[in-house]
């Protein structure tokens, strides 16, 4: 285990010198963003689009449904293109199934359930969720392990009734699940914070590498949450500035109406430009929301999904550890029984062997999680570098474009103002 980690870090160091471009080339195959290639090629591919959100049902019962289009050349799929109708809770179903089955893998995060009724059916919210769901399902489709999942096939292919049955069944069986999940989550949180505070508990994984990772993830979430908060605020600021510009433009136009002649015209032109720029700002606010703020939030969600996996790992470790303890006790007991040549030796031996098998399985399961996590962390870092890079690029591009538009708009006024002032003298 430790040896593996050691090797892994060596491998990483050797990669440090790698150029960005080579990483980027790697990314093309890993990225789960919606910009993933959709054109058929000789390589195996699986590409999904979540489109056409439509409001169904009435009142409290109403919900948004999406058209989920799958294009693939994978033989295990029914054909090159399949269209199904899915709703948000279907995506939850898929997520939860994968989470149960693929311990140790960071399941791509889902967008939050939005509880605020007011925004539930706003165009912006619907579009944001659509985009997030698209990214979610494509990340699964591109994940080397999750891609193979039967649940994904089910989700992408079965008709709506079968899907609904599966979903209601699931919620029936796993009724208690969310609460359990929360409990585990809380446990992990308290354990981690205990670990941070130095109050180490015996049933806690305590190797320095993992401690470091835990601290990293927790602090990362905090820092990212802050950045994300500012990003959303920046969106709001763009909207506000847009609104202010529009109001300012109107006021300036009215003021210009008091002036008459060329000066009045200059005022009214300034007002018109302000109003025009207001629209640009609103557009950029939307762009910023979709392509910068939301991806940052997705980043935060991804970190949270790592935390969920860490909770699973803690459970697996605890289970494995407790079994090992029990096996030790049983072994001592068995030795005692063998010493006194008890009749119960046979029975105890069977129990011991069974436990030993169970313990080995638990250890294997735990080690599997550890191994998967180590792979996943690399994937996560690379993917996030890519995603954030794209988001940064979009931010920079959008801001540059907006600033250029602002500069152009105002610049176009200058000759008119010059003319006006020369006419005056």
């Amino acid at each position, binding site marked *: 285990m430790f040896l593996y980690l050691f090797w892994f*870090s060596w491998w*990483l160091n050797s*990669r440090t*010198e790698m150029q*960005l471009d080579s*990483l*980027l080339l790697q990314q*093309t195959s890993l*990225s789960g963003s919606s*910009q*993933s*290639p959709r054109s058929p090629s000789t390589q195996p591919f699986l590409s999904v689009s979540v489109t056409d959100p439509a409001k169904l049902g009435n009142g409290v019962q109403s919900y948004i449904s999406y058209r989920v289009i799958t294009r693939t050349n994978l033989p295990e799929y029914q054909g090159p293109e399949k269209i199904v109708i899915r709703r948000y809770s279907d995506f939850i179903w898929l997520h939860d199934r994968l989470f149960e089955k693929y311990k140790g893998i960071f399941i791509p995060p889902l967008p939050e359930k939005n509880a605020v009724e007011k925004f539930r059916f706003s165009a912006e919210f619907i579009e944001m969720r659509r985009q997030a769901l698209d990214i979610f399902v494509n990340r699964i489709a591109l994940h080397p392990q999750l891609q193979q999942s039967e649940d994904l096939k089910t989700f992408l292919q079965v008709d709506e009734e079968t899907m609904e049955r599966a979903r209601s069944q699931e919620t029936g069986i796993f009724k208690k699940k969310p609460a359990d999940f929360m409990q585990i989550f809380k446990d992990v949180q308290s354990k981690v914070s205990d670990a941070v505070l130095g109050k180490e508990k015996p049933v806690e994984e305590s190797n320095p590498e993992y401690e470091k990772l835990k601290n990293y993830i927790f*602090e990362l979430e905090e*820092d990212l949450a*802050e*950045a994300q908060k*500012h*990003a959303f*605020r*920046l969106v709001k*600021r763009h909207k*506000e*500035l847009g*609104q*202010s510009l529009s109001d*300012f433009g109107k*006021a*300036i136009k*009215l*003021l210009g*109406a*008091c*002036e008459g002649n060329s*000066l009045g015209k200059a*005022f009214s032109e*300034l007002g018109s430009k302000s109003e025009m720029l207001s629209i640009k700002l609103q557009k950029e606010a939307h762009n910023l929301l979709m392509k910068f703020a939301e991806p940052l939030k997705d980043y935060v969600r991804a970190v949270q999904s790592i935390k969920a996996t860490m909770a699973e790992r803690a459970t697996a470790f605890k289970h494995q550890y407790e079994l090992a303890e029990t096996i030790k006790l049983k072994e001592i007991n068995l030795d005692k029984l063998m010493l006194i040549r008890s009749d119960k030796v046979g029975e105890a031996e069977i129990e011991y062997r069974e436990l030993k098998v169970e313990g080995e399985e638990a250890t294997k399961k735990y080690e599997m999680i550890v191994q998967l996590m180590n792979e996943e962390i690399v994937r996560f*870092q690379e993917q*996030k*570098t*890519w995603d954030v*890079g794209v988001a*940064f*690029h979009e*931010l*920079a*591009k959008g*801001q*540059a474009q*907006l*600033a*250029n538009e*602002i*500069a152009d708009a*105002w610049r176009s*006024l*200058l000759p008119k*103002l010059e003319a*006006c*002032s020369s006419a*005056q003298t």
Partner: protein
Amino acid sequence: MMGFENQGFEEAHLFSSRQEIQSLVLDEPLDGKSFSDYRSAMSSISEAHHPLSPPIVGIEVDDDPLLSPSSYMDRRNPNVSENSYLEPPSYADVVFSPFGNENGEANGFENSTHDSVKSEIISRSASSSSGYIKIAVSNPVKEQEISNSLVPGGNTYVTYLITTRTNIPEFGGSEYSVRRRFKDVVTLADRLSESYRGFFIPPRPDKNVVESQVMHKQEFVEQRRVALEKYLTRLAAHPVIKKSEELKVFLQVQGKLPLPTTTDVASRMLDGAVKLPKQLFGEPATVVAPHEVVQPAKGGRDLLRIFKELKQSVANDWGGSKPPVVEEDKEFLEKKEKLQVFEQQLSNASQQAESLVKAQQDIGETMGQLGLAFIKLTKFETEEAMYNSQRIRAADMKRVATAAVKASRFYRESNAQTVKYLDTLHEYLGLMLAVHSAFSDRSSALLTVQTLLSELSSLQSRAEKLEVASSKIFGGDRSRIRKIEELKETIRVTEDAKSCAVREYERIKDTLHEYLGLMLAVHSAFSDRSSALLTVQTLLSELSSLQSRAEKLEVASSKIFGGDRSRIRKIEELKETIRVTEDAKSCAVREYERIKENNRNELERLERERRHDFLSMLKGFVINQVGYAEKIANEWANVAEETSGYTKESS
């Protein structure tokens, strides 16, 4: 955020690579440092220099951009380069080389001494005319009130050092400093508003009685200092007021301000001012000072006049009685109405400008916070980096953080400029107050004229009535005199008759002696004699009664003559009053015409200057926006270029 600052202090040294530090030194303290300083600081940066706290300070401690900068006097002086970051970016600099130099000197516009773009009204007048007055208010000092109050330490006040530099010949010198207190400024403002009625006199700063109690003393004094400087500068920018005796005295005369602080009852009495109300009430007035009429009635002093004028204005409002002189200047009325609309739009625009500035400030601030959040993340990722991908991400983040913080700084600088330019709107809003008071000067002068006119007409009708009444009395007298004359004539006739009768009696007595012997005639003679005597006696008694009657009549008529004389005197006095009032009226009319003229001139001036100011405001605003938008675009374009690798896939 402050917590982060502390953290930043401890962790800054962890950046071992100088290159990293360079690009993370995103913000120098802005005050007094130009970007060339910034660059030199960059090249000689040491480990001890903490790169992360200044941006926070820069953002948090930044002055409220809505407060106009207090040091604008210095900024107008091209020799002063400290505040170069507040200088407007040169148009040529910005527009013709928008992307700056390659070596990251995009923000090196401190070199620009190109000062053509000015928006402030203050600077406009100063530069447009050859004569300039520069006024600085500084060095507030607390002083003890020298009063006869028995309580020591009760009253303190603050004096300010007012320094004037000018080349206007009327001032007869180039530099003065005086110490004045706020009360002196109030006096100056009062005197100016008396002497320059109808002019758009810049409004005096508020007394802010409440604020002076509530606000922190130092803050209040500083706020007042700034307001005073602004006020005096505005006064000095006014083409007429800057040459006024009052301002000159205020700025030049050392020691106590020689302007009369108040025109109180006593001094107005000496000036003959109090005679006005008496005069208006038609009381005897020998000396008149009609020039006093032109001043608007003052509360508490010219109470009677105020009542009169109030009555007049009520009568005007009621419309029942048409005032003798109405505002007939149609052009003026139109302009006034237009100005009202203008004011409304101006206040709206100024409000919107304020919220625009606020929004710009907010977006800049948030951009800065986003940048700081990414700086924090960059640091964090760099420290924790286990994988190469993390390092690449950290490098990307650093670029974005740098651009965001730079953009934030541009937003802030741009905003400082925007505030300066859009402040013209505020200035004009303030000016509207002056316009209002000039207009109210005009209408109060009109009211005075109206009051005097109606007063005059009532006085005249009163005089007429009196004359009519007294002429009636004269008529009655004449008949009485005639009666007396008749009586006298009767007396005279009766007297004649009496003397005739006496003569007859004497003659009869003589004849009696001649005819002594005639016995026959004796009897009849005796009876004649007694009858003649009777006649004499009757006549005598009649005479005396007539005389007493004539005497009585004479007494009576002399009484009547005396009354008439006083009545005539009264009429003459009334006529005098009318004359005085007429004088006052013509004086008031002249004053009204003068104010009208001033109004018209000032309106023209306002129009002319407004055009100029608004144009330069628009130009300044637009150029500023263009300049900074280009800088911001430049920053982000660089980042977009650097991150363009991420679009390979989608393109």
